[in-house]
């Protein structure tokens, strides 16, 4: 099996704050990340795809097709945005890196079969680097 991993970048701000907790509880739980004005990161998103090697093209996935999917469904909507206000899903859920991964997975999965028909190309995992020290991974297959 061959896995192909492609790296994307977006710069975005967020605030970790849950309506289910009091002001004090939010500060205690999220610390600096609860700052009312938000703060930002240069996120690095790694999308890992697996599948059979196409004997004709010599490719597991057409990288420019993957680029177009990730750009149109994720990067364009997230880059240079305040996620809590500007990205629909985060009006409902806290934009922790864990929740960002779930949203990215949902957005990619919704288009996956029409972009990569035939069922052989799998979204294997998604990794999100919030900072150089904080990396989150969602295994999707």
């Amino acid at each position: 099996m061959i896995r192909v991993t492609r790296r994307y970048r977006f710069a975005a701000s967020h605030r970790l704050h849950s309506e289910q907790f009091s002001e004090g509880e939010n500060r205690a739980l999220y610390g600096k990340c609860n700052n009312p004005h938000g703060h930002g990161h240069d996120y690095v998103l790694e999308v890992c795809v697996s599948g059979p090697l196409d004997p004709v093209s010599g490719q597991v996935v057409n990288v420019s097709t993957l680029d177009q999917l990730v750009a149109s469904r994720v990067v364009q909507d997230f880059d240079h945005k305040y996620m809590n206000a500007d990205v629909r899903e985060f009006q409902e859920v806290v934009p922790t890196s864990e929740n960002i991964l779930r949203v990215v997975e949902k957005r990619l999965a919704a288009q996956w079969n029409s972009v990569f028909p035939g069922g052989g190309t799998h979204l294997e995992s998604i990794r999100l680097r919030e900072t150089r020290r904080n990396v989150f991974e969602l295994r999707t297959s």
Partner: protein
Amino acid sequence: MLITRKAEFSASHVCAQSSLTPEQNRALYGLAANPNGHGHNYVLEVTLEGDPDPATGMVFDLKQLKEIIHKAVIEPMDHRFLNYEVQPFDKVVPTAENVAAEIWNRLEPSFEGSPARLQNVRLYETDDLYVDYAGARQ
């Protein structure tokens, strides 16, 4: 336990198939189909798996691993035009996937009968694109 050794080589390639027209190759491979080729600084990560030898405390001798990678990969591929100078890329398109698999095939025999086995080959074509290959058996 896993140990990984990194190596680099610079090479040029063209991604195109002789059975396709220039327009079809361009549609499939984009800029990489340029007939005159283009190059990359490939970064290779070779991972071995095994138990540390109780006497040496090593999974595998890293100096020896460096030599194996050098002979099997760096010497034949560094500063080469893969399509013209490295088989089987006269017949097989040197996509990152195919180059990673070829590197695996060239490295694996060196570890036959050794306590460490070749666990993974990771090939970075650019900082933002890499391929992992762990052999045909998986």
